[in-house]
């Protein structure tokens, strides 16, 4: 149910007010009596009355006058523009279809024309006012004039929702009278004591029913707001499959003897400082082969690799091959490529190229380093030696298709030309030519 505009007390108040209007009480008296209740919600009362007034038939002429008086009096302490019903009053005063006495009464209320008008006219009762009304005594101003006088100073309308401010009255007249009859005719009024006939009804009953049911909300255009569809169930249902069993594991490393690993670690540590004896070397390689994981625990770190390469290149090769899947292998390669050029490092790289696939960049960088080392070496004898080694190394790489000559063609060719006095360089050059 919608919100009711009036509480029970207010409803009674209005019904009584309307009833008393037909009595010979002065309007002023009626008003004073009405406003004695401080708890009255003026707006709700006035709004209800305005709705009733909009229904031309519902209220009697005296009731209408009293209702208009209330609408005016409720906000009379403020400027007229502040009265929320001022435009309603102005419109009613200009309604050509309305009775002249009613329009004159509203103009009186508004104090139109005679600004110092006393409230004398309120001293009489509503019916007296109507009886004494002299149509000739009253001129009716234009609507524009009234609007100018009473509405102009009105505040700009406060924010209101357009949807709601466009509401219309939600009460519809639906007279239930036999077809062809005039619903306005008084013949359908229920006469006390008379037998009710078709189409008759009691106005008071309807009035109090309306008063009881009026709501603040008018009728507005309605918006269709479709409920979004439920999301389709596609793969959402959970299908269950048997689980794999994962048991908790016993740590077998507990108190394990690490002596075997220790021996290798010992030997590796030795191998960093100088060549191992053949049988020692054999032992290292064998143990590494027996335990594929041992290599991760032999105490070698990338930092120590150069020492191992220089002292025991074969062990270095073996270790690096075993570490090829280790996450650290890149670090090892970086160290290897950056260490000083030597016979042993070249040996290690060469052996690696034949055993595993090395990153292309690594091989390239290594070759570039080789060549620049050859160029930079001062000692002629050492230079010759190194150049010959590099040449043999390169030939091997080329023949084994470890490198693509195209990648390094210019570099290697320049190298060969620079050292063309050396037999091996000339050989390498010839090899390049055949590949061209």
């Amino acid at each position, binding site marked *: 149910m*919608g919100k009711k505009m009036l509480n029970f007390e207010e409803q009674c108040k209005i019904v009584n007010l309307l009833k008393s209007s037909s009595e010979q009480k002065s309007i002023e008296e009626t008003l004073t009596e009405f406003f004695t209740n401080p708890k009255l919600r003026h707006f709700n009362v006035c709004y209800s009355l305005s709705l009733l007034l909009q229904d031309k038939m519902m209220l009697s002429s005296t009731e209408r006058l009293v209702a208009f008086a209330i609408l005016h009096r409720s906000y009379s302490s403020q400027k007229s523009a502040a009265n929320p019903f001022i435009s309603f009053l102005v419109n009613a005063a200009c309604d050509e279809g309305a009775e002249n006495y009613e329009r004159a009464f509203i103009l009186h209320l508004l104090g139109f024309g005679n600004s110092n008008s006393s409230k004398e006219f309120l001293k009489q009762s509503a019916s007296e006012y109507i009886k004494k009304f002299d149509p000739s005594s009253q001129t009716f101003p234009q609507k524009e004039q009234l609007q100018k006088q009473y509405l102009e100073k009105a505040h700009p309308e406060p924010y209101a929702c*357009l949807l709601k401010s466009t509401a219309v009255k939600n009460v*519809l007249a*639906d007279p*239930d009278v036999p077809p062809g009859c005039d619903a306005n005719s008084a013949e359908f009024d229920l006469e006390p004591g008379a037998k009710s006939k*078709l*189409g008759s009804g009691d106005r008071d*009953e309807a009035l109090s029913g309306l008063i009881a049911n009026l709501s603040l909300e008018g*009728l*507005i*255009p*309605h*918006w*269709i707001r479709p409920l*979004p*569809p*439920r*999301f389709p169930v596609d793969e959402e249902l*959970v*299908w*269950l*499959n*048997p*689980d794999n069993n*994962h048991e908790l*594991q*016993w740590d*077998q*490393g*507990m*108190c*394990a*003897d*690490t*002596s075997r690993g220790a021996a290798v670690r010992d030997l590796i*540590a030795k191998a960093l400082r100088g060549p191992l004896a*053949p049988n020692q070397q*054999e032992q290292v390689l*064998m143990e*590494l082969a*027996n335990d*594929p994981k041992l290599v*991760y*625990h032999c*105490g070698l770190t990338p930092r120590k690799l150069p020492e191992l390469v220089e002292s025991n*290149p074969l062990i270095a090769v073996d270790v690096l*091959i*075993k570490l090829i*899947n280790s*996450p650290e292998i*890149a670090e090892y390669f970086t160290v290897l490529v950056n260490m000083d050029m030597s016979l042993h490092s070249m040996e290690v790289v060469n052996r690696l190229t034949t*055993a595993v*696939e090395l*990153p292309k960049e690594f091989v390239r960088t290594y070759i570039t380093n080789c060549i620049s080392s050859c160029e930079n070496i001062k000692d002629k004898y050492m230079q010759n030696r190194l150049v*010959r080694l590099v040449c*043999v190394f390169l*030939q*091997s790489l080329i*023949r*084994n298709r470890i490198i693509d000559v195209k990648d390094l063609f210019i570099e290697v060719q320049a190298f060969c030309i620079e050292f063309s006095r050396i037999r091996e360089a000339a050989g390498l050059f010839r090899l390049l030519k055949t590949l061209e």
Partner: protein
Amino acid sequence: MDLRDSSPSSTPNRDGNAGDDDGVLSVTSALAKDAALYFQSRKFAECVDVLNQLNSKKENDPKVLHNIAIAEFFRDGCSDPKKLLEVLNNVKKRSEELALASGEQVESGSNIGNNITSGSKGSGTTTSLPASNCASIIYADEFVSSVASLNIAVIWFYLHEYAKALSVLEHVYQNIEPIDETTALHICLLLLDVLLACRDASKSADVLNYMEKAFGVGNVSQGENGNTASQQSLNVVGKSSSDPNSSLISDVSCSDLAASVNASESPLSRTLSEDPLDEMFSTLDIGGQNLARHTGLTSANDLPRITVDRSISGVDLKLKLQLYKVRLLLLTRNVKLAKREVKHAMNIARGRDSSMALFLKAQLEYARGNHRKAIKLLMASSNRTDAAMSSMFNNNLGCIYYQLGKYHTSAVFFSKALSNCSSLQKEKPLKLLTFSQDKSLLITYNCGLQYLACGKPLLAAHCFQKASLVFYKRPLMWLRLAECCLMAVEKGLVKGSWAPSDRSEVRVSVIGKGRWRRLLIENGTTRNRHVDSVERDVWALGDDGQPKLSLPLARQCLYNALHLLNCSELSNSKSILPSDSSLEENELSDGASSKNSNYKNLPSNDSKASTMPAALINLNGDLKEPKGGTNQEGIQTFISYYEDICRRENQMIKQALLANLAYVELELENPLKALSAARALLELPGCSRIYVFLGHVYLAEALCLLNKPKEAAEHLSIYLSGESNIELPFGLEDCEQWRVKKHIDCEEANVGAAAAKNSSPEGLEDFMFLKPDEARGTLYANLAAVSAIQGDLERAHHFVTQALSLVPDSSEATMTAIYVDLMLGKSQEAVSKLKHCSHVRFLPSNQQFNKSS
């Protein structure tokens, strides 16, 4: 947990029993051996006793503490996994501290030289033991307890905390090479299960691929793998352990090579022979190494783990991996390949417990819509005396009947499955597996879906709230909860909301009699649907301890879902970015390809890129698989295909979320928020036409509420063709997704077609959305409302007339029509419309007038 004491002789394990070397068994290792034996024979109390003795000798040794925790856990009947978790985490922390400390010591010790026997902290108490000088050297990596990590992950896995398990495992997996075979195998298997549970297809494929290589089960589909594995390992052994001769030169792994060295005795070797090492280069100048290199390459790169102490036999492992592969294929919805692989799995499984294979096969048929076949397979597999199995069996049947639209039947099976679960929980003694076999939360989720389909939002919400313990990270779960709220509000089940009849009805009070009769239209303005919007605490609990369903709760759920969705999008883009940059790195740096990813043997990024177009072409899943099944490119193709599916699904979810959010905000009278949600919805790429329609309708209403009727009208006008004709906003084909899929089994297509026609499914109500024509009527009605507000009553009249012809039952359209009539001064027509509208209820006024219309 296998500890085969018979095998150590054949297993030269670093961690193995090395007593034969020393000839003296140290006290501790003897105790350790005893403890292991007790553990193996499941005498946990005795095991704990021995371990405690050990602990008094090696105080605070993390490994001892670890094993104590494990043994005590079993001794106490697996009752408190959380406590075990706590202990294990402490053990792990302690190990890491020790590792750090000893790492420093080793670094410094190596400078001192040979003096590495100084002993590390961890072995401080072992000095009294014989042979400890040498044996107690413990290196940093000795402390890294992969077993503890594995066990932690196992517990998380069993507690369904997959994300936590994953983070532990991923860390271990990154450095899996040094880990011993048995543990590594367990780690990989668990990681696969966790990844599949997390529905991470890409990583699953990586791990599977790694396992096939590392554990020598590669090319599973090519016959007996044991042979290939042993061959490969032979290669490795042959290569690396060939007896090194005293002469360095002759350390060549291949006899061909050696021969060719001799043959090609080059002058260089003679000239350089001053230095014996130079002689090596004589071996360089030879061809014919290709062969050697190739064998070397395959063996070294694919370095198979020589599974020394395998707790799983070769065929078992093969079957396992095959089943993982099937699961991966099912996850990625690659039905075709899955079918082939599952057949293969069935072949391997012959004579073994094949329930898993049968369930997977049933799932496959279920995914293909062959529901009858799926049921048959389930029937064949189920060992229904086992509570765990029967709960899965019943759950899966429930899924099948749900898909068949028989919600009430599915409800029966789901509740059976749940009662199986509760009987499982009562089983004694507890096993660790019991925790994971308790799938009640997963089944509860299914129940929730089923209740939602049956229109029981309160029960459904109850289920989703329970299941949220597991599903809280899934956006879809939150969307479902929001849907429960909306449905509850819609059905008037929420305190203060309109009963469903009230929502769609126009209530008219009839006041007075005879010529004084007046009609008072009651719900004159927008029905004030929202309830308790002032209630601050969205999660306010009701009497039953469950959050009360409400629109604010719906909104909260939708925000949660959006947040989760955005997070996953963000993390996806994150994971893509680094891999892109690493691609560049790869080109610039020394090409340390193994550094690029945590995942071994990841197909390099460029190969991924190159398979992308192929994946797009093959969107219909019609993959042309090369022989062998899972070569890298094939895997990449179907994974990117799957990722594409996921992306589209997430897009769909996002559309639904934003549409629901806009709706909820409108209901809660927050037009500004509704506006932004609707805008976001319309900005989504590839938005479906239904959601585009909703987006426009919600956006227009929000604009209207914000006093912008002109803009609102513009949004609705996009559906206008010409002055005043509205097109269908979407077609029937757009609704396809929302229809109940009535799969007819392929095999039964001929027989079943007739039967399917006249069998009306229980779920006709399942398509709960407007039909295209009704959507058109909605647009007409709303355009009429906008026009009326703008004061264009003629236009409003035209539109509302159209609307009423399309949606004659709509009370909203009727009300707008009445409004327009009243504004046009046609009160007689308004009254007659009111009287002719089927959704009007005439009520006698409060005064007891005996009047009805």
